[in-house]
């Protein structure tokens, strides 16, 4: 039986959960430790914690916040942001993460994905891909961006996703930069094309504004997990409401 996971995402900046629109215009959405405990209690299937302004100067703080958040979490816990080496990943795992997310560093040095998979197993390695539609191309195409959406790479998102799964990624977290924070729904073409092409699980991210979007991501988008932030942080919907909506639409989920 294939079941779809519902994943609230904590974008963390300097110890606080924030949310933006198309990766900018951030606003404060709360304390990561409190939110993590709430989502665990509500029946979330997993938590993703992204350090969105990862830099070496606040790395120590970040590990400490991860550790305090992990204390509240008895569901899978993925942590990403600024992971550049096997040792970076080990520190996060030791702090209580179950999986580590890599993004920019994997683009800079793809061998990192294989090194992490060899050391911790593929199931521990999530490659996050931030993709934006290329304008003016005849067929649809997406370009990979790094460094929190600030740097274009010229990489084709579909080819990069496929390469990542070949390199040993155990999961792909695919965020549409065009949809992030817009509440217009996932970029279903993006997620579906990658999901069909890659043998590893795919987490769809970016654009959820209503519960139907979660259903679309799981059905038309072929995603194995659907990720959302603001609809949960702002209290518009609970995890239980999201799951009830998915179940009513015929998507198999673990009841909250």
């Amino acid at each position, binding site marked *: *039986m*294939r*079941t*779809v*996971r519902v994943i609230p995402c904590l974008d963390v900046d300097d110890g606080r959960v924030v949310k933006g629109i198309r990766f900018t215009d951030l606003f404060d959405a709360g304390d990561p430790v409190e939110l993590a405990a709430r989502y*665990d209690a509500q*029946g979330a*299937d997993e938590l993703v914690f992204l350090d969105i302004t990862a830099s070496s100067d606040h790395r120590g703080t970040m590990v400490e916040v991860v550790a305090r958040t*992990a*204390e509240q979490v*008895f*569901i*899978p*816990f993925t942590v990403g942001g600024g992971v550049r080496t096997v040792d970076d990943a080990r520190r996060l*795992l*030791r*702090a*209580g*993460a*179950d999986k580590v997310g890599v993004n920019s560093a994997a683009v800079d040095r793809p061998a990192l994905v294989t090194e992490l998979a*060899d*050391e*911790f*197993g*593929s*199931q*521990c390695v999530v490659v996050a891909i931030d993709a934006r539609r290329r304008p003016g191309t005849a067929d649809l195409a997406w370009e990979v961006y790094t460094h929190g959406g600030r740097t274009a790479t010229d990489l084709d998102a579909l080819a990069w996703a496929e390469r990542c799964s070949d390199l040993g990624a*155990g*999961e792909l977290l695919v965020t549409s930069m065009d949809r992030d924070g817009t509440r217009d729904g996932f970029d279903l073409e993006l997620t579906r094309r990658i999901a069909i092409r890659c*043998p*590893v*699980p795919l987490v769809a991210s970016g654009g959820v504004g209503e519960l139907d979007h979660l259903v679309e991501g799981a059905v038309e988008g072929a995603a*194995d*997990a659907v990720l959302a932030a603001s609809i949960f942080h702002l209290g518009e919907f609970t995890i239980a409401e999201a799951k009830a909506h998915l179940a009513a639409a015929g998507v198999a989920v*673990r*009841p909250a």
Partner: protein
Amino acid sequence: MIAVLDYGIGNLRSAEKALQRVGADARLIDDPTAAAGADGIVLPGVGAFGRCAEALRATGLDDVATDAVARGIPFLGICIGFQLLYEGSEENPSAEGLGVLPGVVRRLPTGVKHPQMQWNTLDIAGSDLLAGVPDPAWVYFVHSYAPEQTVDTTSTCDYGGPVVATAERGPVWGTQFHPEKSGAVGLGILANFVAAVDRAA
């Protein structure tokens, strides 16, 4: 005291933390001598079978595990820690498991995504470890391999066919899923193990 064997791989802190949450005096143990006197042993693990087997032997904690089994001390293997109880794995055919349970670890059925990374329900055929779990019992799996079905199998999940989820042989118990990551259901399963340790102590 429950010794959580720490052979340097993966999210061992999660297992320790969850055992502590259900009231156990659980400690990460990386020194074989420090495991002496433990009333229960937990062998967690994530990663590749071969690398975990190698790391377990390099730390000398393999002897702690086999010695505890020989002495009948309650033992819980989780995920790769469960798989290591068997004789070997298709993942790394040259690597030897502990051989505590007969059988080998095989790749998940074809036609489904690998790894199985999701919550799934258990089909339970009588199990002390799973006593009192709700029906259906939802637990979290992350794996591409699982032990083959043997007389020791006590539950399966459906993932392209039946896949072994738990096994028991006397005081040796194992879960392919992650009870430490399976919310309240998982904590209940760990509480069953802790209770068994307390009874045996």
